[in-house]
């Protein structure tokens, strides 16, 4: 999920096989608030992260825990004000499925046909999906992201809270907006994981966050003896910077591009 986006920028050709129902980039809500807040949001995220940076360096666990709450709130606000929620299942459907999702069969329940139409226009119709996506983000995204971090070399026996917090921040930046806009159907996620979805704000931000965290590993082994080199400060920093860059690029210059491996 990480380096591929360095090499993604080939052609805006759509993939041949299209397992996901929608093949178009996400369009922002057509409200003045949405159009404004989408620009304020990254500035807000980075400003808060920068303001808390020295505290994060001093005590990563407590600072990153607090920061996770702030990021969760900001991402929810961003989702509710700017992004269209998933069209595949209604709020009521999601509520029904929440219990079965917790025992790991998240893919199945959204396949049932939607009973009620989603009223995208109303704020209330977006708060429900946002809340549910936020609640689903830890159980769905934390295990695979933590596993990913450990597979790529995060400490196995020590620093577990650090790794968990890194994964939590990555989940809030990358998985949460995707869950909110695309739902949890297996077909959609096959498209997302196969990097077959065209790049937009959400996909761009997710790829950027993961790539940023990947690049954030680079300074860790250097012998500069700086406090901020301690795991996982540079990785989380990379994730935030990468998210903002990816989100902005995905919403503008790279919008509509599709990752091509071959």
């Amino acid at each position, binding site marked *: *999920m*990480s*380096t*591929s986006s*360095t*090499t*993604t920028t*080939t052609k805006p050709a759509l*993939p041949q*096989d299209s397992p996901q129902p929608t093949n178009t980039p996400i369009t922002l809500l057509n409200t003045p608030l949405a159009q404004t807040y989408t620009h304020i949001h990254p500035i807000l995220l980075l400003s808060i992260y920068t303001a808390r940076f020295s505290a994060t360096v001093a005590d990563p666990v407590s600072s990153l825990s607090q920061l996770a709450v702030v990021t969760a709130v900001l991402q929810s606000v961003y989702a509710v004000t700017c992004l269209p929620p998933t069209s595949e299942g209604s709020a009521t459907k999601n509520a029904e499925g929440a219990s079965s999702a917790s025992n790991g069969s998240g893919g199945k329940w959204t396949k049932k046909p939607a009973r009620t139409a989603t009223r995208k226009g109303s704020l209330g119709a977006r708060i429900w999906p946002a809340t549910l996506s936020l609640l689903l983000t830890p159980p769905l995204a934390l295990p695979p992201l933590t596993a*990913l971090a*450990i*597979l*790529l*070399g995060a400490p*196995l026996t020590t620093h577990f809270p650090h790794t968990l917090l890194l994964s939590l921040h990555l989940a809030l930046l990358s998985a949460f907006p995707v869950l909110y806009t695309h739902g949890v159907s297996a077909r959609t996620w*096959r498209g997302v*994981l*196969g*990097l*077959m979805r065209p790049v937009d704000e959400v996909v761009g931000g997710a790829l950027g966050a993961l790539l940023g965290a*990947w690049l954030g*590993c680079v300074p860790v*082994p*250097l*012998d500069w003896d700086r406090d901020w080199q301690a795991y996982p400060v540079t990785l989380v920093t990379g994730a935030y910077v990468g998210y903002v860059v990816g989100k902005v690029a995905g919403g503008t210059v790279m919008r509509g591009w599709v*990752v*091509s*491996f*071959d």
Partner: protein
Amino acid sequence: MSCYWSSSPGSCCWHPSSFSKAIVILVDALRYDFTVPFTPKDGETAHHYHNALPFLYATAVKQPNNAFLLPFIADPPTVTLQRLKGLTTGTLPTFVDAGSNFAGTAIDEDNLIAQLRTAGKNVVHLGDDTWHALFPDYFDPDLTRPFDSFNVWDLHTVDNGVNEHLFPLLHPTNISKWDVVIGHYLGVDHAGHRYGPDHPAMTAKLQQMNGVFHDLVNAVDNETLVVVMGDHGMDSKGDHGGESDDEIEAAIWMYSKKGIFGRTSVSSLTPPATAKERPVAQIDLVPTLSLLLGLPIPFNNLGRPIDEAFIGAKGSDIGNLALANRVTSAQIHRYQYEYAQARGLSDESRSTSLDAWTKLTEIWDLNQRVILPGGQDWKGIYTAAVEYQTATLEICRALWARFDVVSMLHGVEVLALGLVALVVYARGINGDRTELTPLLLIRATIGTVAGIVVGLTLGLSIPQFQLIHATVYCTAIGGLLGLATGFYHIRNRLQSPIPSSAWSWTSLMLPVALSAGFAANSFTIWEDEILLFFLNTFGVLLFLSSFRQKSPVDRTIGCTQSIAFTVLTRLASLSRLCREEQMPHCRSTYYASANSSTSATWQLTIPFILTLALPAVIKTYFAQTLSYQHSATFMVGFILRLGLALTALFWTLDAADDGEWFGGSTQAYLKTVKVFVAQVVLAIGLAAGYATFGWAAPLLNIREERNSSATELRSASQPIETGEGEAKSSIIILGYANVHGSRYLLLFIPWLVAVILLQKPMGGGAIGILAWQVLSLLEIIDANQLADTPVGPVVLGLLGSFHFFKTGHQATLSSVQWESAFIPLHYIRYPWSPLFVMLNTFGAQILCAIAVPATVLWKAPPKKKGLLGDVAKAMATHILFYALINLATTMWAGHLRRHLMLYRIFSPRFMVGAIVLLIVDLVGILVAVGGTRWSFMSVADVFGWSSVQ
């Protein structure tokens, strides 16, 4: 000044001798902290190597006039042969000489032993036979007893031999037969290599040495000087070779019954608690011993006399000490003068030394001419002489690391051009390489021969050119030029080698990032972790790519196998052997403890788990394409399984031998039996395995089907419709879909058996994981249709480099597992012993190189055109990976030649890179591509194809 040029003893300014006889005992790898009492700090408890050798310290404290004990600092490389050169000539070593530890050539510089002989002294040598390579025919032929030094698993033969012959020499009836005895004990060093310092065997060895010194002191007479010293220390695992503190900190102890030793100050009454205080250099032995025995100091000495030996019993004889230092300074000055003349050194480059000399001369002349009030200023002379010696040594250390920049640039040039040629061949040729390769080879050969001729001519005719340099350089350039004309000839077949897809970009950028990282010492130190990161980055990308596959079978295989691949990488990464620079952020797991080089008891289960699991795992990969039949059942089910079972038996016997599970006579048999078992494994693996590979038929079987119910077989098989009337009956060739891949992969097994045998149990586990990873990689590549991309060869390059670290190696001299030569042999035997060490050290890279053709052949369509050309392309890409790393490490080592960490980090990495490239070249071309051809012929034979390619 007149006697400054005179070097004959007894002339006006020579130092009177204090002793007529000497016994010099060298205890190999006697680290300083072995000899001083252990003082616990922050809850640390004593290790096995502590407090086991108290005699040296006790005598130095109780009889300060008879004995002193000091830290004795070695100049790296800390290998015995280099140390002996330093200890006898008093000069600084050059690093690259370390390789000649195994083929010592006679010293041609002036040295202590030569001076002893010239002075008519009879020198007897007992112990390590390295001395005889350095000083052939210098020793008394009747009394001398050399012993083989490389059998590191033998702790006692050498030591007992030295004892047996040393003590009779001290008997009054024999005392007149010799003047100097050199005894070289190896047991401590071997205990370190075999078990590590923190092991009861080390305690026993040090206690034995303690007893030897005790008896020695009782036996010697008044006229004899006793010196006990270590030639180097050992690192936390008991190995040495590098320049870490533990490796350079040895001990020196001098003893005499005369009681002429003293201390320069009250604070130095007891020996230093650590080697960081009041250390003396190993080159200081040369002037000290020379002056104590009344010999001329060897011409090229740079050391200075040890204070304690000359200050006198009361510690007040500053005059004697000053004279000793002044004599030594004169010798050093004479040497430096000659050296500067010979090398054409400017005076500016050694100005601090010359200034110090002027000062020394002034104060000396002043003292000679006039009687100063209050006697002569010995203190001033002493200080000036020490200052001069220190300044000179400092200059020599900086100056003597001489770099031949022209040769370095030429070397980098050849490597870079070679890399370009390889890039063109590997990625820049359109279509099949098979028909082009002979043409390119012929052109390159013609160019090489022309280059040799030109080089020889230039070297012989132009005096400014060195013959060897000119020949080597012209040969390389000639070969490359010949290749270039070949490329020009086929120019219409060339294409841009610049990557065109995301996969080829990734395959290029990760190795480039790795190579760029070698410019920083941190990235070089942490290479093992970086390789884990890069490998699993590839693994994750392959996992994501598998989601894109249209066929559900490909998707499932791709996803599950890439999960297996990444999890196995992470599992293997738990096997770690930390290099010193990684501390304290790293914990070694390769051996029982950080202070050991034996396996922990739980690690003994690994060979047994391998025996049970590995053949079963490999079988499933053959079985997937119904190829597990005929020779495969024999190779995997018998050769591999038996080889692994016997390897497990070997390590059990080894543990029984180490742990002395059985007493008495059984113990003696263990060693013989375990070596025999290892030889059987090699015979089964390489001999029987290769024979099986050679004679194996393709892994096919034929089944007649009466109905078409067996559709599940079809994906992996070739149905041939018999077509006569019924049309329901067909003949199915089982295993057809992977006929090339499965046939070729048989070659992997014999090498796998041999490499696992030569690893420690933990390393065997890592290699087992490597084998599984190779197979899962083959499946991933097939599922993602990546056979034509550089992904396979590059991932195999990363995988080979990664498992180099996971089999207990690091890019340092001290991590070479020399003892692996003794797994299948009792003694050093050429050429086998070096080959075994190579298979131990570079086993992972060798196996990965052998696996490269399989990335192309695995499930390839049997009649696909140009398969051999594709294999050549993949192999060239694989070699390209190592060539890039070799070029980068060479460039960085050259560029950073004045870096503080040159010898510690950059040079060893450069050497590893060069050796690996050479081995992968040989194995890749001879074993892998040769094996591919052989395997093709056997397949073509069966189907009656004239040739597949």
